[in-house]
Each structure stands twice: as structure tokens, then as C-alpha cells.
């Protein structure tokens, strides 16, 4: 029998390190806002021939969009530029200039965002996450209302949800710092999906703990939790791996435009699977056993 839950303080340590790294990255690099979260124009174009990124950056600089005002992202022959707000005349000038300096291309898309709309989007995304978390807390507390301390189950599930959101945001801060990845609406959609997955995964484990506790397989809560984790382990892994297959296919086939969504989900499913055990179930045991003081002395755990 594997002793999974006995290593709970190690899980807290690992989570703590990952989240701390993310928070440091958040402070050092910040999140790179995508077009929806800042004002300006996003222009997507597709060159007829493969084009060197440096050449495009140079051409944009010559047209008056230097590194201060232009961000250039490349995905195959597709390029995405973040530029200041452009009107039709400026767009036409940009089109002619790029054709002259770089080569023929096809227009892909154009997006204009005002500063007001950007601020609204960022605020709304935060509201969505918070309201979802509260909804989960209420439902889980209700679903486990026949158990002693139903509120604890809800709190532990939401704690693992918050854990996952923090990890995903932290990873994106790091990716943003290193590769210049931006946080856009797809990222938000991904985070909301991760919330769903995380809670789903936690509930399956909680449900098994509830069932085993009712059966009274052991008077020791820790043993009940551990037994439940072992029983559900293969399901946890298989569902996780199955979902990852589909995600990897999305990432490889669709590429840059869905990159954010797919990577958020990849990270989220890994951390969501981990946190159901490492955060939700572990916290439940810590709470039940009143081990909060041992957080300060994990070495004795």
C-alpha cells in the first residue's frame, strides 16, 4: 500500500516553491497583457513567402513603429503585431510599406481596443473567477452536507482551485518573461476551464473518501483518505492522460492561435490532478487532525 497522504507536508512544500517562483516572476516580469487588456491595434497578416522576423521588425521600425510601439509575434508565415491605435489611413500606409519592404502578404485580422474596454475586460475576468469559486464553495458544502463539517470539504476544494489558478498564472508570468507570451482572452477561457477540471478532479476523490468513511474502513481519517487516493489513482491518471492527448493534438495542429488556451489547459490539468491530492485531500487531513501548527515545523512531519 502506497503511503500517499503521509507525505502531505512535502506536497505543501512543493506547491509553495512553485507558487513562490510564480509570484516572484509575477513581480519581476509581470503578466504581458494581450491586446484585449491594453489599448491599441492587433494586426494579423500572413506573408506569401517565409520571412525573417528581424526583417519585419526592421521594416516596422522604418515605418515609424519602433520597438517602443510595436510588439511582433511570429507563427510560421503568420505575423501578429501589436501597434498603437490605427485608423484606415494608417492601416493603408502600413500595408503599402510592409509590401514594399518585406513582400506580398494577405490580411488576416485586425482588432482595435480602447483603453476603457481593456480595463473592463481585465476586471470582468477577475469577477468571473471569484464568482465561480464562491459558487463551487457553496455547492460542495451543500453536496457534503451530510458529512461532519461540510464547509471544510468546500474550503479544501476551493483551496486547490486557487492553488491551480496561482500555478497557471505563475507559469504564464515565467513564460511571459522568457518568451514574451501574452495573456489574452484565450488565457482567461483556459483558466476558467482549469477551475472546472480542478474541482471535478477533487470531487471524485472527495466522493470516494466520503464513501469509504461511511463504510467505516478505518477509524483513522488519514488511512481512509490514503485508501481512497490509492483506489482512485488509476482513474485520476487515465482521465488526465486522456485529456492531455486531445490537448496536445490541439496544440500541435492548430498552433499559435490556440497556444495560450492549450498551454493553460496542459499546465492546469497537471496541477489540477496534483492539487486534488497534494492540496485538497492533504488539507482535509491536516484540518481533521488539527495539524496546523506543524506547518511551521514540517521537518517533523
Amino acid at each position, binding site marked *: 500500500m502506497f503511503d500517499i497522504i503521509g507525505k502531505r507536508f512535502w506536497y505543501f512544500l512543493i506547491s509553495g516553491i512553485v507558487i513562490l517562483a510564480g509570484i516572484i516572476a509575477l513581480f519581476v516580469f509581470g503578466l504581458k497583457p494581450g491586446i484585449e487588456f491594453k489599448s491599441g491595434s492587433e494586426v494579423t497578416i500572413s506573408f506569401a513567402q517565409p520571412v525573417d522576423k528581424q526583417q519585419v521588425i526592421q521594416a516596422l521600425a522604418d515605418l515609424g513603429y519602433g520597438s517602443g510601439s510595436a510588439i511582433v509575434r511570429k507563427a510560421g508565415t503568420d505575423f501578429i503585431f501589436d501597434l498603437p491605435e490605427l485608423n*484606415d489611413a494608417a492601416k493603408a500606409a502600413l500595408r503599402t510599406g510592409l509590401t514594399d519592404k518585406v513582400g506580398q502578404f494577405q490580411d488576416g485580422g485586425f482588432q482595435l*481596443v480602447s483603453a*476603457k474596454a481593456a480595463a473592463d475586460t481585465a476586471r470582468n475576468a477577475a469577477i468571473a473567477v471569484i464568482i465561480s469559486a464562491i459558487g*463551487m464553495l457553496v455547492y460542495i458544502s451543500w453536496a457534503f452536507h451530510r458529512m461532519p463539517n461540510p464547509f471544510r470539504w468546500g474550503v479544501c476544494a476551493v483551496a486547490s482551485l486557487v492553488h491551480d489558478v496561482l500555478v497557471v498564472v505563475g507559469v504564464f508570468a515565467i513564460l511571459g518573461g522568457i518568451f514574451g507570451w501574452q495573456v489574452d482572452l484565450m488565457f482567461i477561457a483556459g483558466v476558467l476551464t482549469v477551475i472546472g477540471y480542478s474541482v471535478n478532479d477533487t470531487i471524485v476523490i472527495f466522493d*470516494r473518501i466520503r464513501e469509504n468513511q461511511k463504510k467505516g474502513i478505518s477509524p483513522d481519517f488519514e488511512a481512509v483518505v490514503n485508501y481512497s487516493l490509492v483506489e482512485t489513482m488509476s482513474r485520476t491518471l487515465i482521465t488526465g492522460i*486522456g485529456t492531455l492527448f486531445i490537448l496536445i493534438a490541439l496544440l500541435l495542429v492548430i498552433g499559435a492561435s*490556440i497556444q495560450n488556451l492549450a498551454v493553460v489547459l496542459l499546465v492546469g490539468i497537471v496541477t489540477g490532478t496534483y492539487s486534488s491530492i497534494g492540496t485538497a485531500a492533504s488539507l482535509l487531513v491536516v484540518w481533521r487532525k488539527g495539524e496546523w501548527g506543524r506547518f511551521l515545523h514540517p521537518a517533523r512531519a
Partner: protein
Amino acid sequence: MSGRNTLIFMVVLTIFVLSLFVVFPIEKGKLGGRGIRLGLDLQGGTRIVYKADLSGVKPSDAAGAIDGAIAVLENRINPMGVAESSVRRLGSDQILVEVPGKSLTDAEKERLSRVALLEFGELATEGEEAKWEDELGKWKPATAVIDGQEKELTSAYFKENTYVRQDNLGNILLVFEWNEKGSKLSEEVTGRLIDKPLGIFEGDAPLLGDDGRPIAPTVKSQISTNGQIEGLSLKEAQTLSKQLNAGRLPVPLHRTGDEKNVEPWLGADFVSKSLKAGIIGILATMLFMIIYYRLSGFIASLALVYYAVLTLAIFKLLPGTMFTLTLAGIGGFVLSVGMAIDANVLIFERMKEEMWGGRGLGAAIDAGFNRAWPAIWDSNITTILAGVILYWLGSSNIIASDMAKGFAVTLIIGVAVSMFTAITVTRTFLRPFVGTGLARHTSLFAPYQRKANV
């Protein structure tokens, strides 16, 4: 096979065949002709957000004014010949316009949101308060007293039958007819202004002719029933005529600067790639399930195909106002496929335990399904709950985001269908094996036995 299971089997099979017909119609008839409504990011098109200037409207009339503006915008977009365009309220004072499959220029966007109210003016005398000023001088609204009230002469008194014609000299004429009140007003005003110029203004600016100069004809005779405006370009005259007929906006609209345009080829690219990715992903998952769960896994794979076909059929059948597939929605679909696998995995794991415990296939199926049910229910309900919250936020003033709504609906439908396929379809397909020779080979249904010991 018991009689009851045969019946369920037939129902399940019928639903599948019907779904197949919806997804892959042989004849593009009533059902088959409908496509999944694609969001702008997948279909290409233009999205514009206008903000209404409600400063001149009483707070109690604000909602009515916005509804009126929406109706007018719809009337203006419809003649563009774009199917499925949508005009909706966003928040308290914004209007979202989506025109699929078409890129609008700045000029077209401005034209779409013009108030289309022409105001007539007369030259202001020294010391009088002027409303407009142009190269011809200072102007004040041309007014007349009717029924004891002073009224301004505007196109609000036009009948909705203006049209454009060319006279013998090739001049473009925008012809209009006054309604009853307008006739009286016009009689008074033009009677007073004979041999004087009559200015025409739209908003803060004079109406400009094809030559770029303000249009301000000199009144030659009293006008009572109908009149004409000369000097506009043909295109301008036609647009203006259409807009005058379609009604003027009750409130001025301004572009908020929240705009998006996706070229159709980019959207089509996403669709074909998503489809390919979905097929590859589902095939890989099926292979994995078959390797891990053998015969059960094969049946779960059938259930997964069933799931994909049924979900697509529902996407197709839902009205466009309820469901729009966006790139983010594809993400929701992926998660729901994960859930569909999960329900099967939960059931098979329970079945495995039952069969290791020595039960026969039939008993193991029943016990496995019954014992897995609470976990499937609770976990899926929390996901549906997240979806419902997101949908509510997406349609409310708080978030008002199509992306959020599309994602939420995909997720909710996906999870609901996955519960049905995992429970009903998988069980129905497994049942026929009960009592056959295959059922004795436990390893086909519950492979990889490890002794669970506490």
C-alpha cells in the same frame, strides 16, 4: 438481451442515426442545411461596439432609446445583404454590432452609426445665437410656430419614402415628401425665406455635396408637399435615402474603439485545423482506452464517437442566438471530451473492483454503474455550475462577453451529453455481452488485476 435493454438499445441507436443525419446530411434539406453558427473568430467578419450618448435622454427613456437604436441599426445592416448579422445591447449604454463574413471600412462604420437627422437652418443675423458655422456664415435652426409651439424644421417630418433620381442634366436628386406637420412647417419657413439660402446640417456639420462644399440651396418658392436635395454624390444620396427611410437613430452613437475584424480565410483555417485536431485527439484517446481497458475500452470508444456525433448534432440544431461556436468554445468541447472519458473511466474502475471481488459481468456492470454514479453526478454538476455562472455573467451587464457565453454553452452541453453517453450508451453496449462466452474472460473487461490490500 433482456426486453428492456433491447428497447433502450433501439432508442440509443435511433438517436445516433438521427444525429448522423443531422451532422452529415445526405440532402441539404431542412435539418441538414443548417450549419453550426460560427463566431466571428472562426467565420471572419467585423465586430464594432458603439456607445450611445444618452445625455439628451431622460433616464427612464434610456432603455427605450437603446432598443430603438438597435432596431434602426438592424434596418441599416440588413440591406448590406449579410445573413445572420447581429445587433445587441452590451451593458447599459453600449451596442454590439457583428457583421459576419465582411470587413467594414472606417467610413462604413461611421455611416452605419450616423443619426440620419437632417436639420434645416437659416442664416443668423448679427447678435443671434448660432448653432452652426461654415464658409457661408453662421446659421440658426429654421423654425416656425405651429399650433402655438415653435418647432424646428428637420427630416423627422419626412415621409419614409425618400428616393434618389437623376434629372435630365445628370444631377443627383434626393427626393423627399413632407408629412402633414412637415408641410405646414415647410410652408411657413420657405415662405419666409424666399430668395434666401436654406442650410442643411447633419449633427454639428453641414451636409457636404460631391464638390466638398456645404449644400445650401436658395429658396425659390414656397415648398409645401415635397422637395429635393441636390448636389450629393450618388452613393451618398443613396445611403442617406436608405437611412432616412429606415429611420433615424433616437440617440447619437459613437465608436468606442473596441473593434475587431477577422478575414474569412483565417477563420476557415481555424475550423479545418480544429476539426483535424479533434479527430486526432479523439483517435489517440480511443486507442489509449482500448489498450488499457480492452473490450470495455473498445465500447467506451464507441461511446466517445457517439458522444462526438450527438454533441455536434445538438450544436447544429441549437438556434444561433443560443449557441455560437468560437475558438474558446472548442476549448470547452475539449474539456467535455475529458469529462466523457472520465465518466467511463470511473465506471470501469468500479466494474473492475466488482469483478475482482468475484462478481459476474452482469452484476459487476450494475454495481459499477450504481457506485460510480454519485461521483459522476457531483463532479459534473460542479462543472455545469461553473458553466451556468459563466453563461449568466456572459449575458449580464457584468461581463457581457460572447466568448464567455459560447464557452459556457459548449461546456454545459458537452458535460450533459457526456453523462448520457457514459451512463446509457456504454451500459447498453456492454449489456449484450452478459451471458455470452466472452463474459467469462474477466481480463477482457477488468484487466491488470492488482491486489488491493489495506
